[in-house]
Each structure stands twice: as C-alpha cells, then as structure tokens.
C-alpha cells in the first residue's frame, strides 16, 4: 500500500457526477457546419494552410503550428472549406478569433494515415509527429503535448522518475475522463506506455479519485491485462486534487517549487485523455479530431458525447434537451468554468463540459459583504495562501504587496470564493491583480526598451561628436605640423612670387587724381557743388512753405 500525502486545504463540493454517467459515451451526429478555430491550444495560433473553396479530407492538416509553443489544427471531417475568417469563440473576452468554417460532405473520407512504429523511432521525430497531430493537454490547459516530452535541458543526469496520469477529475459535474477510463482503459494504458517510452520515465502512477469505482476497476483491469508495471492509485475525493501540483503532492509527497515545472523535481503529469490522444496518434496515425464532452446540468438527458472539434455548442445543447428554465450555459466545471456569452461558438480541445444552468441549479450569489477575516479562505487554499490578505491588496491596488504575498502561486481553483461567507468573488480579484501586474510589467519592459534605445542614441551621438572632434583635432594638428615643417625649411618660391605679385597689384589700384586735380576737373567739381547747394536751398524753402 502506497503512502498518500495531503495538500493543505481543499473543499468538498457536491459531486453531481452520477447524472451524466448513466449511459455510455454516445457519438454526436455529424453537424451541418463546423467552425474550427486555428488556436485551440496554449501558445501561438496555427497558420492556415487552406483557402475558402478547398475540399478537405478528414484528418487533413489545415493549420500549421507556428512558433515554439503552438500546435496543429485538422479538418474534423471531410467536406469543403466555406470560409477562413474571424468567428466568435468561447473566450472570456468575447473577442472573435480566426476560424475555418467547414461544411461536411457526410462521407467522412479520411486522409491516408497509418500507425507509427514508435519503438523504432527517434523521440524527437515522435515529438514532431505529435505536434503535427495537434495533441495537446486535454485536462484544461491545452498545452502542446510535445513540449512536455522534451528531454530535460541543463539536467544531463536528471531524468523523469515518475510519470503521473491524472484521472482525478475533481471538478463537480464533469465525467468525461471517468467515462473514457471506463470504456477505453486499454488505449489509455497503451498511451501511457508511449509517454513513458518517450520520457524514459521510471514508474508510472495513475491517480483516480475514489468517487469513480468503475473507472478504477477498468483501469486496474487494463493495467493487469497489459502486463505493464503501472500502478493505479485511488486518491481521496477532495477538490482540487486534479490540479497537477496538488496531485503530484498527493502521490509523491513532493512539492513543485514555486515558479518551477514538475520536471524540475523529476515528475511529469498528463491527463488520461491526453494519453488516449497520444495512443490514437501513434497507434492509428489519427490526429486529434474529437473529444469527449459532458453535457449536463439542467438537461433532460445528461450524458457524455464524443464530439468533433468545431461542433457548435448549441447543437450539443439541443441534443441534451435543456429544460425550459435554463437561462445560461457554462463551459467547463462549476468551479473554474466560464459562462458562455453565446452558444454560437465552436467546441474546442479544451471544452470538457457544457453545463446548462438555471438560477435554481446555481443560485446567483448574494451581494458581497465586507471581508470579516474569518480565514475560511485560508483554510481552504490548496496553495497555502492568505486569500483575505491578497484580496485586501488587490482591491487597494497594492500590487507590489500582492506579489510579495505570492499572488502568482494562486492556481485560481476557486476554493476561497466557494467558502467565503461574505460571497466576495476572490478569484476575480486575483485574476484582475495578475493581469494588471502583467500589463504593468509589459509596459515597464517596453519603457525600459525605449529608454535603452534612447540612451544608446544619445551615446551614439556623443560618440560621433567626439569622433568628429578628434578627427578635426587630428587634421588641425597635421596641418599645423605641416606648416611648422614648411616654416622650418625655406619658403616655397612660388608662394613668395604670388605674394609679391599681390603686393604689386595692390600698389596699382591706389586712388589717383585726388591730391592734385587739373583745372578742368576743379571747375567740374565747383559746378557740381553749386548744383548741390541750389537743391539744398530748394528743399529748405519747400519745407518752410509747407510749415505755413
């Protein structure tokens, strides 16, 4: 029996999981239209490879990974691309994003695809293959899977000791992982073996919360059948045990250091659905085209559906038959999910659950009261934070203090908001503070950059000025030296001659006939003087005349 560890805090919200586990995973019928966003993963958007009017096959690459953190996007079925344009997507900001609209032809015609002999392949090739297969973490973060499989740089002697498969699924209502484990355990286990091979990991631990006995039994059976030395570990049901850091703590007793990755302590963690996708990609050559989605809440028939990526959420809802008093829809779980501004958005790789909500199911919280520092939030915080203090700093915009009190170690699980008797939306305050700090840091970076550039420009000017001055001084010095040198030797005859000539010329242009004028000239001068006198008198009389 393995010793399990605990993390601080955690909460026990009502599970509400049984509603959606009554019937097996159903395949969603082919929708009439698919809207496939080019960014369904963490990181850079994929670059479109198709144009409107192109015919595509199921599984055809339509979006190329673009950038280090990026992943591929595929046509979920065969059909015609109707448009490549901005479409509304499920995002808190409500901003549209670049999507391909695909009109299915109903034939589900596949591109040629085949299994990969992963045991005979180079891990780097396999990572590239997974990147082009669009395999991303399906636990919620949708981080490109291949990046998590890279060898540890800078740690030549360290390797992954423990590979953890996360089957905790601690959010209420969501059962997509539960059902996947019940029905496709063997594939998940094979996928785990592929991940283990690529990571060269030691032990493989599969953590599942004890509220999923069927999934636990199925996974245990699959591990036994496979003959692999994996261990299925039952963990207590407590939210948020499915958070990677918390699950690692429960299973290994290790804490991922603040600001570091699990690999820094020799652990890597994948969601079981990711493991399943890896299996489909390597064993069948199938890129990630669909996922399991729980449709639950205020619906007539809660169930899990296998849904093609890009399927409009409203078609999922129509299939679940929402009850009449449904007034909003939540994507994700009730703890960390978000309310959809519109149901006319596509289902993406991150979409694990759609909850039809009514005021009866999720009563709106009463208006927030002031914090009374009851510390229930601190008691519930799985990151050992002091949410009441962080709230104080966030609302007074004392972001420096908030950072000093480890704001960025908050995993935004919502446990603090859940227990708050004053119903303060604590997580939103923390998200706000984080985004403000990030924005400020970016501004600061930009300002620093601008200042650096300015300072360099000034420096350059100064340098150029100095260089010019030095050049000038050097020139002057050279001239002076040349002159001094020439003075030391005899003056050049040509120069001397020129000087003499100039002197002669100056002598010839001296004024003449001013001292001794001829008599004729004298009479001319007298005549001119008489005229001038006459004009002066005229001017005088006219002035007197006007005076009168």
């Amino acid at each position: 029996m393995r010793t399990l560890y605990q993390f601080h805090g955690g909460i026990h919200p009502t599970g509400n999981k049984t509603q959606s586990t009554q019937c097996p995973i159903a395949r969603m019928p082919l929708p009439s239209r698919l809207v496939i966003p080019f960014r369904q993963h963490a990181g850079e958007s994929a670059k479109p490879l198709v144009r409107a009017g192109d015919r595509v096959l199921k599984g055809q690459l339509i979006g190329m990974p673009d950038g280090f953190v990026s992943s591929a996007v595929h046509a979920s079925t065969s059909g015609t691309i109707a448009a490549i344009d901005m479409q509304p997507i499920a995002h808190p900001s409500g901003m549209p994003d670049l999507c391909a609209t695909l009109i299915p032809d109903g034939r589900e015609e596949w591109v040629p695809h085949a299994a990969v002999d992963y045991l005979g392949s180079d891990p780097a090739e396999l990572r590239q293959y997974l990147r082009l297969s669009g395999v991303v973490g399906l636990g919620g973060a949708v981080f490109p899977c291949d990046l998590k499989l890279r060898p540890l740089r800078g740690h030549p002697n360290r390797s992954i000791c423990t590979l953890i498969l996360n089957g905790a699924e601690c959010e209420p209502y969501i059962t997509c992982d539960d059902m996947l484990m019940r029905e496709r355990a063997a594939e998940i286990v094979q996928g785990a073996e592929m991940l283990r091979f690529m990571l060269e990991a030691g032990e493989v631990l599969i953590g599942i919360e004890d509220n999923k006995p069927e999934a636990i039994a199925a996974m245990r059976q699959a591990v036994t059948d496979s003959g692999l030395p994996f261990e299925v570990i039952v963990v207590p049901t407590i939210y948020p045990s499915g958070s990677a850091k918390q699950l690692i703590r429960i299973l290994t007793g290790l804490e991922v250091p603040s600001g570091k990755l699990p690999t820094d302590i020799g652990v890597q963690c994948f969601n079981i659905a990711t493991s399943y996708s890896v299996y489909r990609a390597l064993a069948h050559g199938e890129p990630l085209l669909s996922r399991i989605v729980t449709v639950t809440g205020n619906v007539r028939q809660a169930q899990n559906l296998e849904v093609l990526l890009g399927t409009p959420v409203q078609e999922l809802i129509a299939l679940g038959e929402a009850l009449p008093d449904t007034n909003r829809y939540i994507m994700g779980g009730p703890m960390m999910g978000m309310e959809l501004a519109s149901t006319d958005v596509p289902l993406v790789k991150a979409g694990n659950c759609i909850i039809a909500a009514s005021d009866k199911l999720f009563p709106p919280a009463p208006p927030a009261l002031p914090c009374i520092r009851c510390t229930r939030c601190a008691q519930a915080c799985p990151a050992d934070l002091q949410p009441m203090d962080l709230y104080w700093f966030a609302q007074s915009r004392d972001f420096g203090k908030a950072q000093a009190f480890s704001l960025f170690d908050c995993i935004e699980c919502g446990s603090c908001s859940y227990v708050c008797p004053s119903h303060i939306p604590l997580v939103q305050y923390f998200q706000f503070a984080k985004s403000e700090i990030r924005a400020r840091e970016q501004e600061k970076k930009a300002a620093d950059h601008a200042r650096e550039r300015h300072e360099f420009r000034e420096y350059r000017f100064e340098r150029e000025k100095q260089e010019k001055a030095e050049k000038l001084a050097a020139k002057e010095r050279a001239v002076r030296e040349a002159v001094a040198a020439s003075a030391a030797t005899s003056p050049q005859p040509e120069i001397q001659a020129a000087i003499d000539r100039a002197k002669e010329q100056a002598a010839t242009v001296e004024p003449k006939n001013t001292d001794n004028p001829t008599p004729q000239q004298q009479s001319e001068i007298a005549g001119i003087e008489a005229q001038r006198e006459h004009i002066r008198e005229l001017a005088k009389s006219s002035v007197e005349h006007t005076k009168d």
Partner: protein
Amino acid sequence: MALFSPFVSKPDTVSRIMFKVLLALVPGIALYVWYYGPAILVSLTLASLTALGTEALMLKLRNRPIAPFLKDNSALVTGWLLALSIPSLAPWWLIVVGTAFSIAIVKHLYGGLGNNPFSPAMAGFAVLIISFPVQMTQWISPHGLGAVELGFLEQLEYIFLGVLPPNVSLDAITMATPLDTLKTRLHLEEPIKQIFAMPIYGRLAGQGSEMVSLGFVLGGFYLLATRVITWHIPVVFLGTLFAVAGIFHLADPLHYAAPLFHWFSGAALLGAFFILTDPVTSPTTYKGKLIYAAGAGLLTYLIRVFGNFPDGVAFATLLMNLCVPLIVLYTQPRVFGKKGERP
C-alpha cells in the same frame, strides 16, 4: 449580468455565522437568568435595540445599504457581549451609551464591518469602566446571597427610574464581584482560605458566576463543533492563564488563587470563546492566533492580580488587538512550493 466561477458556493453567510455566535451565548444567558434573575434580559434588549439603531444610523450617514448590513447580525453580537460584560442592574443609559459608542465610534468610524482594529464590545467596556466606575460596580447578587431580592418590576423600576423600594439600599441587592472581593481582601492581608470561605464563593469561583461561565463553555464547544472558531485562541488563552496562575499559586498559595478560579471568574471563559475569537480583530494566521492568545492570557492575569481593575480580559484584548498587524506580518505561513520565504 455576467457571472463568474465558481458558480457554486457553500451556503454559509456572515449573517449565519453571527447568528451561531448569538445562539452559542444562549446557554450562558439562560444560566445568568437562573442565578441572577431576568434583569440581564433587559440589558440585552436595550443593547440589541441600541446596536441596531446605531448601526442603521451610521450606515445611513455613510451612504451604505442598510438592510444587508442590519441582517448580518454583527451589531447584535457586539451589543450582547457588552451587555454580558457590565452589571445588569446598571442604569439603562449605561448600556445604551456603551453600545452606541461601540458601534458608532469603534466600529463605523474605522470603516464598519470587517475593518475595526479593536473589539467594539471591549472598547465600549473600557470607556464605561473608565467613565462610570461607580455604575459599573452595581453587580446584582445571585439568588440567596443578597440581603434583599428585588422582583422583576422592582428591577425594571431601578434600571429605568433609579428608584429602589423603600427601606432597601443599593448595597443590599448588589455586591462586589468575586474577583474584586478577593483582591480587596488580599490587600487587607486576610488569609486566602478565609476569603474563599465567604458565601459568595462556590466550588471553583464565584457562586452563580461560575455556572454562567460554564454556560459559555458549552456555547464555546458549539462554536468549535460548527467550525465558527478554531481551537487555537481558546485553548492557548486558557492554557496561558492556567499556567501563569498555576506558577504563582504553586509559589505562594496563600496569596494567589488557584488557576481554575481564574478560569471561572470574570470574563475569562466569555473572552476565550467569544471575545478574543472575534475574526475581525484577531490574527488570521494560526501561529499568530497562538501568540495573540498567549499574550492575552498573560496580560489578563497580570491586570487582574497586579492592576487596578477587577478584571483584565477587556484591556488584555484591546492591547493584543494593537499587536495584530505586526503578529500577522511575522507569522505568514509557508506557501506551497516555497521554502522558508517570507514576504
């Protein structure tokens, strides 16, 4: 209206928490009525009305919504704690002035619910005992100990009109508290055994008052069981008080009362479970709570035994309230994934 996750929450409210505190006071109040008569109910009613009235007035002056805050029950808790701390036979205006001061000055002028650095009830008590020391000594004698016992109507007449029945003096119906008596008589060099032989003393402490304290312990257990409070403050406060009193008692049993006497005298048990545990004015960290409670326990004993006031809980609470921000700053817990780092 946009709604944010989490969409579910625990059905707990400030109002419900404060109501549980009021409920937890009921056993103590019931025993109070049993031993001292119904005069306490009059003070509780006066305190409640004043608390709610002052709260509403201050909210209006501060342009805050009145209804949600009146419903949070926090003003009632302040009023009740103050009423239980002062003599029930005191003139009506004493509790009114005290409660109004607590709510208007100590609570609202510092920002209202959740923002007051000092325990409103204890600050109100401090103002009363400094301003009206005479009225604050009119402790009613428990059943069977007073020379005369007043009926409820006669008590009402005294509280509101200050009129006693003919031929009855105030001394005949009131007495000094057991803590006060002990201190005065020890000053007069009376042996402790002889003091405790007086009829006002019961098994552990004062006749009657020890039973009321027991009622508060019951309520305290209820608060612990319903997780309104944690064990840290009551256990460490009472532990420290016990330890300090025990050391003095062992060193000099002729002059220092036994630790249990200190537990069951005055406001020690009310303070341990109801006053020091006020979330707003006590530290938020576990380690901080331990330091805070230990400091309060030590100060309570020192003020009781060596100070000028008969009881020390109120002043100990206020002095420790002062230290809370510093205590909290230096007792921050370790954050997940961080070793030995402090903000």
